[in-house]
């Protein structure tokens, strides 16, 4: 029975992806494009050569972290829509420290990374404490926090980090995750060491959830708050802690973009979507650290490969978005299906 359940958890995301790709192919056919050429271009765009592989990994890195952030909160029954804002503040903090501090790499880089973690954690602490103490729903607060992060960051970039400009200076090499060596083996892709940090973060999440008392309590709160409270657990503390850890993951994703990919922060015109895509990644990964890593990789590949579809196969970018949306749709509906299945089984008992 347990094995069976586990199998379903693995099967559902795979089937959703296949269904999404097939539905995408049908839409391509119906709109008069060659789906094989389209998917070939997608494949080439993501894994065609060392450059695209490097870029795919680069794009995957922040997805892993935002996916972990959302998955972690999900485990405690919290919906962290605020990953987006946490990424932005993490990014900003990392760049700020990168520019303001002058230190050797061994201090500078960890300091910048810690700053991003702290900023993300702080940004998630606010909705966490509001939820724990006042019962304000975290979805509302985190969404609002996204906008606060976006517009404050833009204003800080304009007024503090630059003199009315739109992009900051590049951070010095001592704070950068970028690696000339990784770049040289991948034809100047922007692949950076952040992927190792992201994978390490996945291990940390697995460890916290599966191997610590804290993780056990968090899961218990996720399953049933009242029962956990009755069992003597501090529910408010666990809610705040979950949000803080989730925020730390998302803030770290911001550092990946800031210290690894761009080395700068620019005035953002609206959402950067790394946080929102993280929701889909967490869903597809079934809130499991390993699943999130695979799901993030799939999303990174899809997003990266999508760029090749218009030039490689003449498939317009809009269609690429539809296909990605379809996959998310099937993943989301599979979630509903599984939920319905579980309900059904419970009813039988």
């Amino acid at each position, binding site marked *: 029975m347990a094995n069976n359940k586990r199998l379903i958890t693995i099967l559902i995301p795979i089937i959703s992806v296949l269904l999404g790709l097939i539905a995408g192919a049908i839409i391509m056919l119906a709109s008069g494009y060659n789906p094989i050429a389209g998917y070939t271009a997608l*494949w080439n765009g993501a894994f065609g050569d060392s450059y695209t592989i490097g870029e795919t990994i680069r794009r995957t890195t922040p997805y892993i972290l935002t996916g972990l952030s959302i998955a972690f909160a999900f485990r405690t029954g919290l919906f962290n829509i605020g990953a987006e804002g946490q990424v932005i503040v993490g990014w900003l903090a990392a760049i700020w420290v990168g520019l303001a501090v002058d230190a050797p790499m061994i201090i500078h880089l960890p300091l910048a990374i810690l700053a991003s973690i702290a900023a993300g954690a702080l940004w998630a602490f606010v909705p966490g404490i509001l939820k724990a103490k006042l019962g304000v729903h975290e979805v509302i607060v985190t969404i609002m926090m996204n906008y606060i992060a976006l517009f404050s960051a833009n204003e800080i970039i304009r007024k503090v980090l630059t003199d009315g400009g739109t992009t900051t200076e590049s951070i010095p090499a001592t704070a950068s995750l970028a690696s000339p060596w990784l770049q040289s083996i991948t034809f100047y892709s922007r692949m950076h060491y952040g992927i190792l940090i992201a994978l390490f973060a996945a291990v940390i999440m697995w460890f916290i959830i599966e191997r610590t008392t804290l993780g056990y309590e968090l899961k218990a709160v996720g399953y049933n708050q009242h029962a956990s409270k009755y069992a003597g657990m501090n529910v408010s503390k666990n809610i705040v802690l979950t949000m803080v850890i989730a925020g730390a993951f998302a803030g770290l994703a911001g550092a990946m973009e800031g210290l690894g990919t761009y080395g700068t922060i620019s005035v953002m*015109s609206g959402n950067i979507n790394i946080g929102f895509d993280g929701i889909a990644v967490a869903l597809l990964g079934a809130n499991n650290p390993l699943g999130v890593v695979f799901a993030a990789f799939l999303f990174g590949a899809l997003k990266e490969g999508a760029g090749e579809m218009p030039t490689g196969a003449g498939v317009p*970018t809009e269609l690429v978005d539809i296909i990605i949306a379809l996959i998310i749709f099937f993943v989301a509906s599979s979630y509903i299906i599984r939920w319905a299945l579980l309900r059904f089984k419970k009813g039988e008992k």
Partner: protein
Amino acid sequence: MKNSKIVLIFALILGLGIFLSACGSSANNKDTDTSANEKENASGTEGEVTDFSIAMVTDQGGVDDKSFNQSAWEGLQEFGEENGLSKGNGINYAQSTGQADFMPNITRLVRDKYDVILATGFLLKEDIQKAAEQFPESNFVIVDETVDAPNAASVAFAEHQGSFLVGVAAAMKSETGKLGFVGGIDSPLIAKFEAGFVAGAKSVNPDITVDVQYAEHFSDPAKGKLIASNMYDNGVDVIYHAAGGTGNGVFNQAKDIKQNDPDRQVWVIGVDRDQHEEGQIGENNVTLTSMVKRVDVAAKEVANLAKNGEFPGGETLEFGIEENGIAITTSNEEAMTEDIIQAVDEWQEKILNGEVEVPKTREELKTFEESL
């Protein structure tokens, strides 16, 4: 039972993998074939126009933004027609949906061996700078920013001059004495539009007020519509937008108002391209005029220079009123009356002969306003 299911999953994954990798390799073959062909062509017909190729990378507005990117693409298409090139064959574009796409798009075009890569928009500055250093063999052009590299050319427009002239037209047209300005992202470039527009309007009527708002987005029509709705409600009757796709929302709002109440005077001033079509609603047209930035002229000019082996690497090409790079349209003949056109022409004369120095920044605007 359990085992057989696991086997099935692996079979599925493996099948997908084989299917995809098969596709991948076949396409690779195709690619190498065509590039081999291209090389043959190149060596066979040396000196002929066919071996020149140029591609552009859009910013997040996309190639159909009815504005800036579209204009650049039209310029390339025109260049293509004159030289027997078509999309995918000598000219091409890669669309970006966000900052993350810029570098992959640029690199893709470099590897597809385009001779010149044109980037539209100041957002691409950093990436073009990096690309120019990484790929010294390729040539790059950036519009609206300056990039410092021997293999990169920069294209600049005197938007403040054109904005000044539409400011004159707006002030002449306005009945309420209130104008609106909707900017995309608050940045030195868009501030140039703002300063020119305000200066032009105040030159005609020093008491006029201009409500300046930024959408913080170049492709968010909903936001543009919201801002326009507030402005029109507050008595603004002419809005000048410098906001790319966001500006389409301004047009929508003006058209909605016009549709409900055809007698109400609401106007929009278009930007970058002649946006006359965008303003058509029934028999009325809400587009007063457009500040045309001839990105197409610039794109074509650069393409021609590069084709003739005179790529202006390391230089900045300036396009102003004098160079036909900036113009204001009179497509809406009903709205642009004789007096307005005459006034605009007079001020244009003054700009051309140096009598008026149009401000480019908010600071310069302040001194300009004090001198009025």
